[in-house]
């Protein structure tokens, strides 16, 4: 029997979710044995979905999978593991208080009866042959994220994996760790292991892969050999020309006014204690929309949370209307006229509470009488006004908010903040998960507010939205602003490059 050259052959994969969303449409993926194959695409392109199907976590609606020439149907990850597939997620499945060795023993003990010493031996062998630097007797929670990732990989290798799927592996690594990581991948490749590398980072894709499949909106755009393309080509394929064409003609708008929000050299740490925002500075003027573009997880959330006072500021200042408000509490900042619409409705609203209670959440002070009593009449008429002005469809003001549709929840959330006529609005993913009607409504609302002089910081991973609405765009990557400019100045190539971490000139 001839030795099988193709490790993975996914044919005609389609995935349609029960609610009608088409995540993947007729996707083919062919990975040669022993190659490093890149899977490139933006947020929501379908990369992770495709891999979860390969790993047996999800079942495809249509299509077939062949591993090393053998047709397979996975009922769960365990079937995939048996075929030699190992997946390393962005979120590790390690037990933090256990040592590396204990995690390895745990992972193997469900397959067979194992002996701690045998596990130790095997682990040491693998470590030596790849040069994997992993301390066996240290508790996982004490390790750097980069090392933890290596533990995950070691875990997978210990199960004799022949195919390794890595989902955005370098998103948690520092630049030095990235180089070490890529070196390790080359060693693994020499050992004959096939690797699928999911990423949105162009430089890495270019430096490590042999061939790349590019996905966009659930379809395959192209399959290329890495040494036959450059980063610009990749960027073009990833983003696509149509996006840029969606910019409306120069709309008549008043010139942006004076500076109302100034962020100076902000440094902010994330929940793990790592620096997520590394010296960000920008200004926001009255009557303009500044769109902050970037792939999720590049520091946007921490930046916004620091501005509103939810997260401590390590270094730097936030100046609002000429006043230094760094580190003040959220309710103080809201009171001064800065509104924040968070990306999660579960945070912006208290889902179990009714509409009236939710409408006073961020401005409670305004609804209290002298003695600390809540004036519910005032709250009720206020919430009625929001419902009317922003066309929120509800059964009753007293019904819990969780029963409203996503679009109506968002209208309530946005309306609640906007009705106070704030000077600055920070809107994070304002149309996330909404239908077309709701999306259009929110977007026109933002434009209208801008025309009336409000300053808006729009944080979104949806590039269409960024381009449609922004007067200026800033691209954020790994906690730094890569470039700022007007929408016309960003060609698709440049945008792709910037979002992928490659600095380039914006103004032509």
């Amino acid at each position, binding site marked *: 029997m001839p030795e099988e050259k193709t490790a993975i052959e996914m044919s005609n994969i389609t995935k349609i979710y029960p609610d009608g969303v088409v995540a993947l449409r007729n996707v083919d993926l062919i990975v040669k044995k022993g190659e490093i194959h890149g899977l490139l695409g933006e947020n929501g392109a379908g990369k992770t979905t495709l891999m979860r199907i390969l790993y047996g976590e999800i079942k495809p609606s249509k299509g077939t999978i062949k591993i090393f020439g053998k047709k397979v149907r996975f009922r769960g990850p365990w079937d995939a593991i048996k075929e030699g597939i190992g997946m390393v997620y962005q979120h590790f499945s*390690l037990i933090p208080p256990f040592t590396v060795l204990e995690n390895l023993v745990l992972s193997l003990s*469900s397959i067979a009866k194992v002996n701690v010493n045998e596990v130790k031996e095997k682990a040491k062998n693998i470590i030596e042959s790849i040069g994997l630097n992993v301390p066996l007797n240290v508790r996982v929670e004490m390790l750097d994220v980069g090392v933890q990732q290596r533990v995950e990989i070691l875990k997978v290798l210990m199960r004799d994996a022949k195919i390794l799927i890595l989902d955005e592996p370098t998103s948690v690594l520092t630049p030095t760790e990235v180089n070490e990581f890529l070196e390790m991948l080359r060693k693994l490749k020499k050992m004959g292991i096939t690797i699928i590398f999911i990423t949105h980072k162009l430089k890495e894709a270019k430096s490590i892969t042999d061939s790349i499949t590019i996905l966009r909106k659930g379809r395959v755009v192209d399959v290329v050999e890495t040494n036959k393309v450059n980063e610009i080509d990749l960027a073009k394929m990833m983003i696509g020309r149509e996006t840029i064409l969606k910019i409306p003609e120069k709309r008549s708008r008043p010139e942006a006014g004076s500076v109302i929000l100034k962020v100076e050299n902000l440094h902010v740490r994330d929940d793990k204690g790592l620096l997520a925002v590394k010296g960000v500075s920008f200004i926001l003027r009255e009557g303009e929309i500044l769109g902050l573009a970037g792939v999720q997880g590049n520091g946007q959330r921490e930046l916004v949370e620091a501005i509103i006072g939810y997260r401590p500021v390590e270094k730097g200042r936030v100046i609002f209307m000429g006043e230094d408000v760094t580190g003040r509490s959220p309710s103080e900042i809201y009171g001064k006229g800065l509104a924040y619409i968070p990306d999660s409705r579960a945070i912006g609203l208290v889902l179990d509470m009714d509409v009236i209670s939710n409408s006073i959440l961020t401005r409670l002070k305004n609804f209290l009488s002298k003695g600390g009593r809540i004036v519910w009449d005032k709250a009720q008429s206020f919430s009625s006004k929001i419902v009317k002005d922003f066309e929120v469809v509800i059964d009753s003001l007293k019904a819990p908010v969780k029963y409203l549709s996503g679009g109506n929840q968002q209208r309530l959330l946005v309306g609640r903040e906007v009705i106070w006529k704030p000077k600055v609005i920070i809107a994070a993913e304002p149309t996330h998960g909404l239908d077309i009607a709701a999306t259009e409504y929110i977007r026109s609302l933002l434009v209208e507010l801008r025309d009336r002089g409000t300053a808006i910081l729009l944080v979104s991973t949806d590039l269409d939205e960024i381009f449609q609405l922004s007067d200026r765009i800033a691209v954020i990557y790994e906690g730094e602003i890569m470039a700022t400019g007007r929408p016309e100045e960003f060609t698709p190539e440049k945008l792709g490059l910037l979002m992928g971490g490659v600095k380039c000139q914006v103004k032509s």
Partner: protein
Amino acid sequence: MELNIIANLLIISLVPMVPLLLGSVGEIVAEKAGVVNIGIEGIFLLSALTSAVIDFFTGNLILAILTGIVTGTGLGILHGIISVYLRGDQIVAGVGVNMLAYGLCVISLVTIWETFGSSPPVKTVPKLKIFDLRVSPLVIVSIAIALVTWYFLFKTNTGLRLRACGEDPRAAETMGVNVMRTRFLATVYGAMLAGLGGAYLSIDWVGQFTREIAAGRGFIALANVAFSGWNPLIAIAGAFIFGFFEALSIYLSIRYGQFALVYLFKTIPYLGTIAVTIIFVGRAKTPAALGKPYIKE
């Protein structure tokens, strides 16, 4: 002279140590797997009752001890089903079990022995003699159980898998552990040990069943779990310390207890527990997924 008293006190401390140790070690296993059972108090009570009953009617000590263990197992199964499979609220279920046990015990007292306070004396486990003091063999048994449990939890693969359930059940599940079954079995084991502890209370230590025989010991055992950092070896020391508080209070009551002061001394074990808990908590880490029902999706 003083030394003699202290030595005696230390040996007497072994007596209240036993139920605390058994209760703690069992609960450590359950909590390491992620389930909290505050119904230990109720298990103590009910097992004390059932083993006293069997002892009373048959005089067979082995049978009586087994009855206590079985009672604990039964309550453990109940709590396990509620907490693991029905994803019920573990604390509330525990409170309910305690109340139910209390009610059942008093009813039984009345029905069987027609008394509201305490049963007639029953045959007790024969004691070993150490330095003029008579100490129960269960002291050695409970310490042995603690040692074996420690070895199981920390030196075997199965123990590793159990502990994984309490730290990160999702990760454990992806690594092939049957989280729900493990949690259920751990809960039953914990309750089983508590059942043994309850049997000890009535047919070994006190020599009869009284409605107040548990006296909050189930909760002191819970405090010992946290104090010991979820480590059965340290739990031995902790149970001994708490036992010492109780021995101290008994001693003071005998020496100085004109009738009322007895009660004041009785507060010593409880205040001591609080003090110890405050000082020593925060050192060790609670199992991260403790008390949270594991939902598969």
